[in-house]
């Protein structure tokens, strides 16, 4: 199944049941593009009627707003809301917790009201509804740890859905001491991704990488493109042999999609 844009569907007189909000990282970052593709494969597998905005999508404005630049945030956010409302979009899924948070919690005040879910929540509900069956072979008994992103976890209280998806892999899920509401940030949020660190003793992602290595896990599962970049950088610097994957990628690998 091909990836369609909402514009294409509209031209054919159709509309999607759910919009896949790809985000800047998912669109442009080579590593995050793999997550985007993985999610498309899962959406195809579950035969969902979905579409993307394609070139009509813009940054949600999260990093600009958190840096303090409300003008840039409002410009991009209002433009997005115009597009979304223009297509009468009701439901949105995204693989980026920052996009997820901004559209879900901040767009309503600007006139954008949608049902927004994170892709780990969607995958969990697809499994629960029997629309997606996980073949557990590849990861059976493998030690996996899970990194809570701040904007999915602490900010939006989504802790269980991603863990339930991981349980379906039959892997050996080993939690870090700082998990769930106590999860340590990867260091990218608040527009830190786009600047050098302030002076300090070490980088935040190094601290997290050490904690991940200490679990003895072979794989760290994440749910955010920025966390993935940060954690992968940490692993590289530590020369640690821990693979960093998005939860959707583990599903694709397991089911050989």
């Amino acid at each position, binding site marked *: 199944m*091909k*990836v369609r*844009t909402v514009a294409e569907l509209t031209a054919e007189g159709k509309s999607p049941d759910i919009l896949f909000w*790809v985000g*800047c990282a998912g*669109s*442009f970052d080579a590593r995050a*593009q793999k997550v*985007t593709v993985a999610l*498309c494969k899962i959406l195809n597998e579950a035969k969902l009627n979905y579409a*993307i905005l*394609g*070139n009509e999508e*813009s940054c949600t404005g999260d*990093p*600009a707003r*958190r*840096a*303090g*630049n*409300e*003008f*840039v945030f*409002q*410009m991009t956010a*209002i*433009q997005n809301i*115009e597009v979304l409302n223009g297509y009468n979009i009701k439901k949105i899924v995204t693989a980026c917790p920052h996009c997820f948070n*901004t559209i879900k*919690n*901040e767009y309503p*005040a*600007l006139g954008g009201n949608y049902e927004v879910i994170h892709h780990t929540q969607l995958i969990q509900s697809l499994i629960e509804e029997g629309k997606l069956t996980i073949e557990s072979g590849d990861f059976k008994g493998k030690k996996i740890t899970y990194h809570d992103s*701040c*904007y999915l976890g*602490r*900010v*939006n209280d989504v802790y269980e859905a991603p863990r339930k998806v991981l349980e379906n892999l039959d892997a050996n899920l080993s939690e870090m001491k700082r998990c769930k*509401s*106590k999860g*340590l*940030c990867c*260091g*990218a*949020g*608040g*527009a*830190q991704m*786009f*600047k050098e*660190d*302030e*002076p*300090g*003793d*070490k*980088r*935040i992602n*190094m*601290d997290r990488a050490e904690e991940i290595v200490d679990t003895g896990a072979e794989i760290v599962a994440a749910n955010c493109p920025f966390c993935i970049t940060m954690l992968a950088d940490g692993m590289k610097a530590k020369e640690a042999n821990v693979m960093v994957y998005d939860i959707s990628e583990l599903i694709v690998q397991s089911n050989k999609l």
Partner: protein
Amino acid sequence: MGLQQIIFLLLIGISGYFGFKRYGAIKRNIFLGQDEDISDNAGQRWKNVLLVALGQKKMFKRIIPAVLHFFIYAAFLMTQIELIEIILDGLTGKHRIFASSLGGFYTFLISFIEILSILAFVATIIFLWRRNMLKLPRFHKPEMNGWPKLDGNLILYGEILLLIGIFTMNGTDTLLQQLDPAHYPSTGNLAVSSWLGPALFGGLGESSLHILERAGWWLHLIVILGFIYYLPISKHLHIFLAFPNVYFAKLKSRGEMENMPVIMNEVKSMMGLIPEIPVDPNEELPEFGSKDIFDLSWKNILDAYTCTECGRCTSMCPANLTGKKLSPRKIMMDIRDRAEEVGKTLDADKTKTKENYDDGKNLFDYISKEELHACTTCNACVEACPVMIDPLEPILKLRRYEILTESAGPAEWVPMFTAIENGGAVWQVPDARDKWAQEFNQNQDAE
């Protein structure tokens, strides 16, 4: 009227007057902040007060300090019952006014207070040890040097003095009840004093016992009155302010930054979505964000006065953990220090008001840009605070001032802003946004 009664009335009167002035000034300082209407959802707010403030739910994430703190908290709350009796005795010149009327219930009540007081004593000793001997990092950050460190110990010494007062008073009383039952009505067998009294004061003469009993009584009273003077300059206002602070805490999602309708409407009018807003050319450029306490909300300042400097926020802050200058606790302490500074200036110079205030200083003299720039907005500090203080909101308001009003900020952010503004993406990239999708579809064709 006896001499004791006169001294008592004088002390209460002076403390009452001072307290009224001092706490009034704190209230005034809190309302130097901007108006913010927080009157919605009273049901949920009372629930928070019950669970988080009264029930200390968030304290119990760290079980040992939570239990110890609970002993001191419960003893403090219950001792107030004894204080009511002390005040009534002091006013009427009687002795243990509740003892005869309450009978067995009085024995139970005072025994309960005594047991809690013993537990509080143990907790106080452990806290003193923990604060001074055990090198807990959060008690030894740079912002804790000087007064904050002394402040943390002073309250514990005060607590010990108070307990000495209580047990001297009750212990000698149990002995005096046998020697002079006409003046010392029976309290029944008190749980602690019935054995601690004879053990400490047995063998002393009646006159010594009488003096000690009075000394204990006055010590108890003076320490409590001393707290009225001490609390406003200390970090211990949380014993009162935790309740309103939890009540007025943000209920909407942590993920929602406060919207700025002025900017939203200007952008909407620029995009032709709403009618153009006429611009008055004589009008000064508006200031956005916060540069001083006057631009914060009153709730941000209430947060600062509520902070008891426990440092749980700082101990969870990823920036602080990796050696950056940012400490969420310091942000709260700085806001309070600045509010105190402004308050003192207002007290000294009655021509100055909230509206015309200018002393050439602002919050940026307390909080450096480096601290603000280190925040990842991860909300760990917000999650950690046992009394629902939000250190993140003022950080973001100060960032807004720096970016929107000063047009300053980290230079590396500028390309990100420009890229979003011009290209709709956080990076300046030549590719189409859906290039990945075209490739994905080509691969599908190939299969």
